[in-house]
């Protein structure tokens, strides 16, 4: 991907993104805004799953922590920038909490802990419905902007910056060492890498971007809601987006998220069957092309050169 063609394609994609407000209506800009935030969820999950090899079934635990703590701080009278920082910091604390079992537990055991973390967060939100709004969601007094175009710019900027940081982190020595620890932890440790330190770093980075994205969505929508940020179905959609787009590619998450959100819009007339078809397509993709769309494309390009 770090080829002239790769950079050129990325530039074209950004240019199309920049020009979108001039030829797209507000409705579709709104959809793209959601898809952009979702892409950040997907990319930060890929850093943990694709690189550090951790099956985190609870990305929404980190997202929800960021969203709700930012919302609570905003309700307490703090401004949006402070709330974003606060949300990200809370999510990082959550990331460290998740990293502790990850350092001791393997594969399915760790996956379960993350699943339980989400369920506990859901229960906590419902039990403390007095301050969190429970299943209805928590309104916040401030919003980023009321204009669809401005919101779109915020989301696009956030996506591009996150994508650049995460992509180059994953291609740096940090990404390589994480891959090594994910594939063979003992050998990585034998090579002299402090596995604990790198795993912890991966969790903190993933949590930072998840929490920040969660907080941004809260201020985009004016509510922090269980249905859209914490529910397990959101976690599943994030997983689908990454696996569909191509794991271990970071940028594949953007393709997956765009596919997922746009396709769901197109299938909206089908109602409930919508999720059935999207899951079915994702299942077919992981059976037939386990490397995902971007992974498959990269492999084809490699073969040609």
């Amino acid at each position, binding site marked *: 991907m770090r080829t002239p063609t790769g950079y050129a394609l990325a530039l074209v994609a950004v240019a199309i993104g920049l020009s979108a407000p001039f030829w797209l209506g507000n409705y579709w800009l709104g959809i793209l805004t959601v898809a952009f935030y979702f892409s950040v969820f997907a990319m930060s999950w890929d850093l943990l799953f694709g690189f550090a090899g951790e099956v985190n079934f609870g990305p929404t635990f980190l997202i929800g922590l960021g969203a709700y703590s930012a919302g609570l701080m905003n309700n307490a009278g703090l401004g949006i920038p402070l709330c974003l920082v606060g949300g990200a910091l809370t999510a990082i604390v959550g990331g460290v909490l998740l990293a502790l079992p990850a350092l001791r537990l393997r594969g*399915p055991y760790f996956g379960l802990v993350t699943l339980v973390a989400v369920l506990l967060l859901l*229960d906590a939100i419902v039990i403390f419905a007095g301050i969190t709004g429970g299943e209805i969601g928590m309104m916040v007094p401030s919003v980023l902007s009321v204009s669809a175009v401005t919101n779109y710019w915020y989301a696009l900027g956030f996506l591009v910056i996150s994508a650049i940081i995460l992509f180059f982190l994953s291609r740096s020595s940090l990404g390589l060492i994480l891959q090594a620890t994910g594939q063979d932890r003992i050998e990585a440790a034998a090579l002299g890498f402090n596995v604990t330190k790198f795993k912890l770093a991966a969790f903190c980075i993933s949590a930072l971007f998840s929490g920040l994205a969660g907080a941004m969505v809260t201020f985009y929508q004016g509510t922090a809601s269980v249905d859209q940020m914490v529910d397990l*179905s959101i976690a*599943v959609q994030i997983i689908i987006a990454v696996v569909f787009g191509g794991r271990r590619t970071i940028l594949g998450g953007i393709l997956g998220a765009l596919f997922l959100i746009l396709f769901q819009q197109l299938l909206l007339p089908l109602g409930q069957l919508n999720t*059935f078809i999207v899951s*079915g397509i994702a299942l077919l993709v992981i059976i037939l092309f386990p490397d995902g769309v971007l992974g498959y494309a990269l492999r084809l390009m490699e073969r040609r050169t």
Partner: protein
Amino acid sequence: MIGLQILIDGFAISSLYGVAAVGFTLMFGVCGVLNLAHGGIMVIAGLIGWWAAVNHSAGPYGGAVIGILAGLIASYVTYFAVVRPLQKSRAIPPEEQEIFILTGTLLWGIMIQVGLDYLFTNNPVTMQALIPGVMHIFGVRTPRNEGLIAVVCWAAIGALYLLVNKTPVGKQLLAASINPRGLTLLGFELSHIYLIVWTVYGLLAGLAGVLLATFFGVSSANAGSLTASAFTIVILGGLGSVPGSLIAAYVVGYAETITAYLIAPTLRPIPALLILVIALYIRPQGILGRR
């Protein structure tokens, strides 16, 4: 009085959890597969059983049999359409196969849930009790059906015990769980053994789903939480250990019943999650886990 009530109710619920979890743990022990569509398969059995009993005058017993068969078919479909292709795929590196099977069965479970939601809506349905009426155990009014559930569950667990420990097929299953390569070298076809496990699994999950439908009622919305509770029980007991799962089923069943009776019914799922988190920090291999 309430203590006895908890004891009796908890026993029936725990036996049901036991049957639901035993198939799941057997599957992991022998095939190394964690089937996240587990709850979906149970719900299929319950809903189809109810549908056959109500709409096609199959009666409660006919409905139960049809429900169990539906669970078996769902189990075969899961194996041939989802798990087998992922296991055979050459594009998936072996060390990542586990993750792919988890993701694949998760997606399949969602498809089942949404599909059932579409066909049957998500209103909970309750199957007619297999034996109507109530009985008195030490002065506690108990539906006869609850007693029947406990008896049927223990009969199923007993049958499984005999199958695994006393028959040649069971010896092959045990051998496959200990050393699959050794078994292959002795000339046994591993895929036949996997098929047997998926059959046993389908029957157990179907039975659990049907009994659940006569007890609490089932709805498509339950699929996720049923998978989570089976997963919880199996991890708590130790992955792959059948006796461990049974002990854990009783721990979870009683913890839930006590919470529901003494604190609040809405807090029912919480103690199991807390027990699980504590257990994972202190003893990640579970009560009777091997590794």
